[in-house]
């Protein structure tokens, strides 16, 4: 349960909403129980009075109060139910925001290297489903369990008041067992199955993908049938475990239901003794068992939620593991830099953990204002070198110092957002004039001036699709807007045709006036103007 603590803390940051939401659920549950209980009382009372009237005995009955109560509870159950659903869904959506924002903050504190491992499509989709599991923690699990306890207590107190303490204790005992069966019991019997469900499914997914990738080879070897049969067995194991968990949840629901009903039977049995002794009236005798029958509905939503608790805990612990904050690789500082030098790398090694080093004893000194080109064929490790120089990847040995820098990564990263928002990342204070200016330089001004939303044109899947070359120029524009004195450009002209590249490259000369530029590419034609070029081998 420790896994849940950080997320529970987050949820309990809104105590007001939780209490109001809980109260609305409670009011709904109590209205439902009261509607039936009062109706039962009323019918019994009228039956008894009716018999007296029929026998000619003068008897009176107050129809006003019970009649009014029945009508009130009928309406209040509906109204509270509606309010509860609206209010609590609002709460869930708020919690969803809280959880996402908190998770994002934590992720942005996590080490960049580790996040590099954790960014595949599979990891992202799993992250989404793990977050979803936590969003509903309050509405599905915490509130119903807490309220079931509260309503049970209320009914037991009612039993003590209307009947006697002995009956109340016996009924209470049965209810507590029913509650345990519906909650803790389900959890204990399913957590193992439920916790590994997600891992099993991921393993299955890997196996299916392997099967499809190997389909031609397997077909040639005449093995698709055999391998598919193996896959079917794996899939069947996953579904049959799920079915096992479902069945257990079902039996626990039935069991707790049985005990709730039994408690009503016990109350009725004990009530008759009190009735015949004259301590309890007929209508009151009917009221308690009917109220107890109503409890079944309160308990009904618990087993399912507790059956998923194992999976929720697994989700939480995965999120805790992947999103833990840890030390950033130290960003290279300008301290210790000789005057008029923009970057000084001494004896550094570039290596990804677990792999052989790409470079050892790499030395580079760049004067302020210098334009350096670095050339190397694909796979030579130049992007890793750029990552090290920019501070994304920690160098293994040696020392590295540099001034502030801005870095255009080899991969074009644009956000699903407006053009303006994407550009402002580079320079949050830039005016519209400046933005149009840089777009003009990148030959994009015309492209966006014709869009209805101009600078607010939405980029990404939902909005205007950019070609590879256009997207690259937007990313380049964003970097050029940034005031940092050192600019690192990794394959700056990917996707640009030769003519555009020539024109853009020329304009960059003036735009980068006075800045130090390191550009990396696979061939000299893909470099902007340079003072000197370094060749990477191997």
């Amino acid at each position, binding site marked *: 349960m420790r896994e849940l603590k950080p997320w529970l803390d987050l949820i309990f940051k809104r105590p007001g909403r939780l209490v109001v939401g809980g109260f609305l659920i409670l009011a709904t549950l109590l209205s439902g129980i009261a*509607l039936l209980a009062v*109706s039962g009382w*009323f*019918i019994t*009372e*009228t*039956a*008894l009075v*009716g018999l007296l009237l029929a026998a000619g005995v003068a008897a009176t009955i107050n129809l006003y109060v019970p009649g009014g109560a029945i*009508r009130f*509870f*009928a309406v209040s159950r*509906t109204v509270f139910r*509606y309010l509860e*659903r*609206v209010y609590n*869904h609002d709460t869930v959506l708020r919690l969803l*925001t809280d959880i*996402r*924002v908190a998770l994002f*903050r934590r992720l*942005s504190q996590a080490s960049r290297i580790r996040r590099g491992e954790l*960014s595949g499509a599979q990891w*992202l989709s799993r992250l989404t489903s793990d977050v979803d599991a936590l969003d509903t923690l309050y509405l599905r699990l915490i509130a119903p369990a807490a309220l079931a306890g509260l309503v049970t207590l209320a009914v037991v107190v009612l039993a003590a008041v209307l009947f006697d303490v002995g009956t109340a204790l016996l009924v209470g005992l049965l209810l507590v067992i029913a509650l345990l069966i519906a909650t803790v019991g389900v959890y204990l019997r399913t957590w193992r199955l439920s916790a590994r469900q997600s891992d099993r499914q991921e393993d299955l997914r*890997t196996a*299916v993908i*392997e099967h*499809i990738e*190997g389909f031609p*080879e397997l*077909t*040639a070897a005449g093995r698709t049938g*055999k391998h*598919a049969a193996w896959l*079917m067995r794996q899939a*069947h194991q996953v*579904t049959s475990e*799920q079915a*096992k968990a479902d069945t257990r949840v*079902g*039996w626990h*629901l*039935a069991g707790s239901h*049985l005990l709730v009903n039994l408690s*009503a*039977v016990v109350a*009725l049995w004990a009530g008759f003794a009190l009735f*015949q002794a004259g301590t309890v009236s007929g209508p009151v*005798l*009917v009221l308690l068992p009917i109220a107890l029958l109503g409890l079944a509905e309160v308990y009904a939503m618990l087993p399912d939620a507790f059956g998923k608790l194992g999976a929720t805990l697994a989700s939480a612990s995965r999120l805790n593991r992947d999103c833990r904050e840890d030390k950033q690789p130290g960003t290279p500082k300008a301290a210790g830099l000789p005057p008029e030098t923009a970057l000084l790398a001494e004896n550094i090694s570039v290596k990804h953990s*677990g*792999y052989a080093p790409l470079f050892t004893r790499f030395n580079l000194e760049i004067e302020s204002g210098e334009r350096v080109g670095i050339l190397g064929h694909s796979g030579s490790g130049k992007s890793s070198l750029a990552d090290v120089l920019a501070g994304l990847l920690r160098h293994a040995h040696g020392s590295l110092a540099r001034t502030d820098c*801005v870095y255009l990564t080899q991969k074009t*990263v644009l*956000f*699903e*957002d407006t053009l303006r928002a994407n550009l402002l*990342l580079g320079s949050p204070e830039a005016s519209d004039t400046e933005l149009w200016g840089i777009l003009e330089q990148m030959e994009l001004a015309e492209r966006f001036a014709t869009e209805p939303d101009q600078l607010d044109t939405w980029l*990404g899947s939902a909005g205007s699709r950019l070609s590879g070359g256009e997207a690259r120029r937007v990313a380049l524009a964003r970097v050029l807007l*940034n005031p940092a004195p050192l600019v690192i450009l990794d394959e700056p002209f990917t996707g640009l045709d030769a003519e555009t590249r020539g024109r853009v490259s020329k304009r960059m000369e003036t735009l980068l006036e006075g800045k130090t530029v390191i550009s990396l590419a696979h061939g000299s034609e893909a470099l902007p103007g340079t003072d000197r070029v370094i060749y990477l081998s191997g």
Partner: protein
Amino acid sequence: MAEPSANGGGENTSAADQKAVKGWLADLARGSRLWIRSTVAAGTVAGIATIIQMVLLARIIHLGIIDEVPVADLTPLFLGLILALVVRALGQGFQTRFAARCSEQVRRDARRQLHKHWQATGPVELGQSSAGTLAREWIDHVEALHGYFARFLPQMTLSMIVPLLILALVFWLDWLAGIFLLLSAPLIPLFMALVGMGAEKLNQQHFETISRLSGQFLDKVRGLTTLQLFGQTAGAAELIRKRSDHYRRITMKTLRVAFLSSAVLEFFASVAIAVIAIYIGFGLLGYITYGPSEDLTLFSGLLILLLAPEFFQPLRTLSQHYHDRAAAMGAGSEILERLDLPVNFETASEMASVEGSEDRIELRAVGKGFRTDQTVLKDLSLTIQKGEVIALTGPSGGGKSTLLHLLAGFMAPDTGEVHLFGEAPGSFRFGWLGQKGFLVQGTWADNLRLTTPDASDIAIETALRNVGLGSLLDSRQQGIYSPVSEEGQGLSGGQARRLSLARIFLADYDLILLDEPTAGLDSDSEVFVLEALHKLAVAGKTLVFSTHHQALLTLANRVLLVSGGEVRDA
């Protein structure tokens, strides 16, 4: 990030499409009708036991309070009551058990259908879809059928049976009270429609919001490095908050309306109980002078009251499961779209022509095109002797791959015949090496035994050494029984392709087809692949490969130029 995001929604499915999906779901249900019927039967038993429970409760209360029978004399009734409770619990328990079984079987059937389709589609066409998409259909979409078969479908029947039983009993007890319930009965289809529409809208709205929010969130997570480079993570967090809040407000507007529909059902259920309670009370007092109310007793009155909530309960349960239906329809339409794709692969191995010589490969007047206007191979006749090493060369798109696929039996020719050593293509085992190597998680031995299950340890090790993986194997502690990828270190593309080649060595096939075996390899792997192919050629295997690589062309004893639909010796 500016990438098309996967959208899982089938919201715009047309009516015809919906009908097809319903038909497909019904077919699946037919396959598991035994389990569905058992589920409904168990649910009905629970329903009947509930009715009996209420009858006994009302009876006991009537006898005890009105007739003042001593508790001891009521013992048989109490025992009957407990028996009814136990039967009810058993019914409930078996209902979920059978439902779980049903869904299990349905999912297995659906997966089998999909797999059959894959096999019928053949490796070439299947390669057109991404492995991730196919895996999602096979796993996630099939999983989405669970709720529909385990919960919605049986509940659909139960929500007819149980209320009808209750209605009949209430009519027998007091027809006026029965009419109160019946009055709400014509409204029930209306409820259902209302609830259905509400649930559908709710589901759709919820789905859209969640996927948009997830999209926004994932977009920022994916680009986190960029945000950090520009020092903008705090701003992005604030943006996530603002956007989420904005979506929340929009969603809540729709939800407020959507929840009204289920509130209507709730309202009718509550009001019906209240009306019945008050009617019975007044009837028992003798205030109602018409109709059957003078026959009301505490027994019948109380029983009607106890049954009224049970009358509405199945419907309320059904409305809770409505989203299961929407989910199954969405997933079903995507699965059906896959199953409806045309297949033309099976014909290849079914071509029953066993004529032709046993020691050569013959193509007779073979033609193949993909669209009517585009012919890849025209009227091609070719003879390859057993043991020859054939290199196919020529421009890309010239038909090299098509020719290989025809020889492999991965596709059938439009015209003409292909005979491989007197047999139809695809009817015997052969070696295939595609451009991507293929490996599964597991040990080296697992990977090699995938295609040759009975290979000995020594044979496996020899095969791996033949493709130059010996040194890698020596660095692993448990030899061929160590995992292929250790500590997150996978194989490079070249190593993976060599692993595939090792399988071919191990299996000792007569015919080996290779699609660009050296394309995109690092120089180390290239040397090993060339060496391995040379060994296979020396061993007398028939090798056919497409290539541009000079060293491979010299390895061949016959080079064929495939270009513009024609094949000639170069």
